[in-house]
């Protein structure tokens, strides 16, 4: 059979008709399906914090929630830590794939970009992975909830404790993008309030910096007592390793790793990480409920590791979101992101990972924050027994006061 021009045009026309029908068909089936899109770094320097594990725990929550008259579908995508990739994915998900809620989105620059898209399109957005406190400050949106932590909370807990322990002069090594800037700003405020001084800082190109030795030497030359690491993931672990290699810690310089995850401790090894303090809002070995939750889900995670603050956050966010959807009905939930988010704000949050919490008008979820110290190797009783609790900040004090963030939603 030869392909004539007429046949070619005809088949193209048929194809085009099908292509037009397909989304309508999908939409008809989708009327009773809630689609959750988990967007995070699945291949880069933050991928081991959330990545595939973050997706796995979002799915775990959807399965635990079960079928209450509607089905739940969890999609995933890799934003590669690029804001443009992130906002394109978000638009595609919302406009073409009928995604109803976007979840996770670490890397503050991407987190803020997706925040814009969801606000424009009136879609629910629960940010778990990003740290910038601007998500509930100047850039807060009626469609957004910031779920487990932010730069203000980290700065208050880790920064405050370090200054109290005598570390009153600081030098910052800051990842040069929205997250690093916010973390440095919030921490520097606490240092100054507590009577400390900031002697200087460097901003390191992000992503792509693997060698921090020259920045560490600059920090040492400043003679600051504390080097504040306003970065995350592999940037932080590289800094800590290289600081040990260049003998900084032996000369009495203290490192303040302002954002660390239990996976970072694991990657560094306890020998290197011992004694560091870090702030989390979730730790697997915190109480009976967190231990039960961990046992229930850890089989889904890379080499049976326990969940961290972000992956556990994805779990709890999906549960709370689905409760709100069940409460208001699928059609209403699909119609308006703002409406779902308002419903979520009206209900207290409750789950095994974080216990009880509530969501403020500015979109900040309020939960306690915990200051931990990394145990010495001989103190550990088993695998992943890395942290001991130093101090708990109650939920009402852990985050920036409602009226100080400059969020327009609060005034109205």
């Amino acid at each position, binding site marked *: 059979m030869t392909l004539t021009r007429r046949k070619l045009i005809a088949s193209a026309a048929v194809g085009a008709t099908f292509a037009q029908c397909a989304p309508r068909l999908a939409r008809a089936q989708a009327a009773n399906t809630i689609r959750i899109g988990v967007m995070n770094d699945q*291949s*880069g320097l933050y*991928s*081991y914090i959330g990545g595939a594990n973050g997706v796995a725990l979002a799915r775990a929550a959807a399965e635990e929630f079960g079928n209450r008259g509607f089905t739940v579908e969890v999609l995933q995508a890799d934003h590669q830590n690029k804001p443009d990739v992130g906002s394109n994915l978000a638009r595609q998900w919302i406009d073409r794939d009928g995604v109803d809620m976007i979840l996770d989105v670490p890397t503050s620059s991407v987190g803020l970009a997706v925040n814009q898209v969801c606000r424009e399109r009136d879609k629910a957005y629960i940010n778990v992975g990003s740290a910038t406190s601007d998500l509930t400050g100047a850039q807060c949106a009626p469609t957004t909830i910031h779920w487990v932590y932010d730069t203000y909370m980290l700065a208050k807990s880790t920064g405050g404790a370090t200054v109290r322990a005598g570390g009153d002069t600081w030098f910052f090594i800051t990842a*040069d993008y929205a997250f690093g800037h916010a973390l440095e700003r919030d921490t520097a405020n606490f240092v100054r309030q507590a009577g400390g001084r900031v002697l200087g800082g*460097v*901003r*390191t*190109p992000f992503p*792509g*910096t*693997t*060698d921090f*030795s*020259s*920045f560490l*030497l*600059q920090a*040492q*030359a400043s003679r600051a007592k504390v080097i504040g690491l306003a970065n995350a993931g*592999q940037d932080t*672990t*590289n800094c800590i390793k290289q600081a040990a*290699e*260049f*003998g*900084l810690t*032996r*000369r009495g310089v203290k490192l303040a790793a302002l954002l660390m995850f239990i*996976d970072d401790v694991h*990657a560094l*090894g306890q020998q290197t990480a011992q004694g560091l303090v870090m702030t989390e809002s979730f730790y697997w070995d915190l109480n009976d409920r967190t231990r039960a939750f961990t046992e229930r889900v850890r089989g889904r995670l*890379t080499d049976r590791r326990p969940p961290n603050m972000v992956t556990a956050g994805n779990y709890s966010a999906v549960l709370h979101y689905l409760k709100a959807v069940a409460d208001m009905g699928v059609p209403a939930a699909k119609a308006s992101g703002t409406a779902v988010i308002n419903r979520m704000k009206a209900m207290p949050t409750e789950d095994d990972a974080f216990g009880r919490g509530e969501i403020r008008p500015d979109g900040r979820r309020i939960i306690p924050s915990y200051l931990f110290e990394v145990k010495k190797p001989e103190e550990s009783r088993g695998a992943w027994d890395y942290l001991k609790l130093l101090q708990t900040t109650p939920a009402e004090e852990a985050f920036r006061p409602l009226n100080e963030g400059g969020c327009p939603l609060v005034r109205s």
Partner: protein
Amino acid sequence: MDEIFGIPAPLLFGQLLLGLINGAFYAMLSLGLAVIFGLLNIVNLAHGALFMMGAFVAWMLLNYAGLGYWWAMLLSPVIVGLFGMALEKLFISRLYKLDHLYGLLLTFGLALVIEGVFRNYYGSSGLPYRIPDQLQGAWDLGFMFMPVYRGWVVIAALIFCLTTWLVIEKTRLGAYLRAATENAPLVQAFGVNVPRMVTLTYGGGVALAALAGVLAAPIYSVNPQMGTNLIIVVFAVVVIGGMGSILGAVLTGFTLGVVEGLTKVFWPEASATVIFVIMAIVLLARPAGLFGRA
């Protein structure tokens, strides 16, 4: 003497030393690239992936076969070199008669495949590789702590670069190589097996990349992206030095490492871009590169 351009002198010396260390990696990688480009006329974008493979093979030798760092320095370049020769025989040798662009696309594709395979099996979070016991510790130089291992990297890189240069410039084999670069058919007419020599050269260039990978393994964590992070910079180094110029590649590698180190003091945010700015300027002023022949 306390301050130079408003920067404390110890800090400046420290940065110069660190620049040399980074420069050592640039030099070793750009050397391999320059050798390959000189003889094969292939812009080998797979070089970064093969550097990463070198580090991974070292990690595998340690964890699967119990062979430590020194064995890895010997075996990893051989294994990766053989792998490179297979690549050359199977794929690259088919492209010599075509435009540069095809070689570039092919090797880029190969790089993506190799990286993807490693990411699939080993994840992207990076695997730790310990510094060998003999090179543990640090020297206190007064103005800074100099980790022994980093000093070793500079020395080793210098030795390898010098050896390669001597082989190419001063030996009979090197003479054949250079002759084949100029006029392959004529050299073949003298009874030299040029295709085999080309394969061996590619293997040699790749082995250099693998060696750099072994040197890098204890400093950076072993991860599938470690080559991608470096290869673009290394290409800029080769372009600045002059495509195909061996001495140029080595000198530019070390120099740009130092320039980058100094930028980190004066304007840290620009340290990722400074090499490309220099590249643009060099291309405008001397399109053949600093050491290239127009």
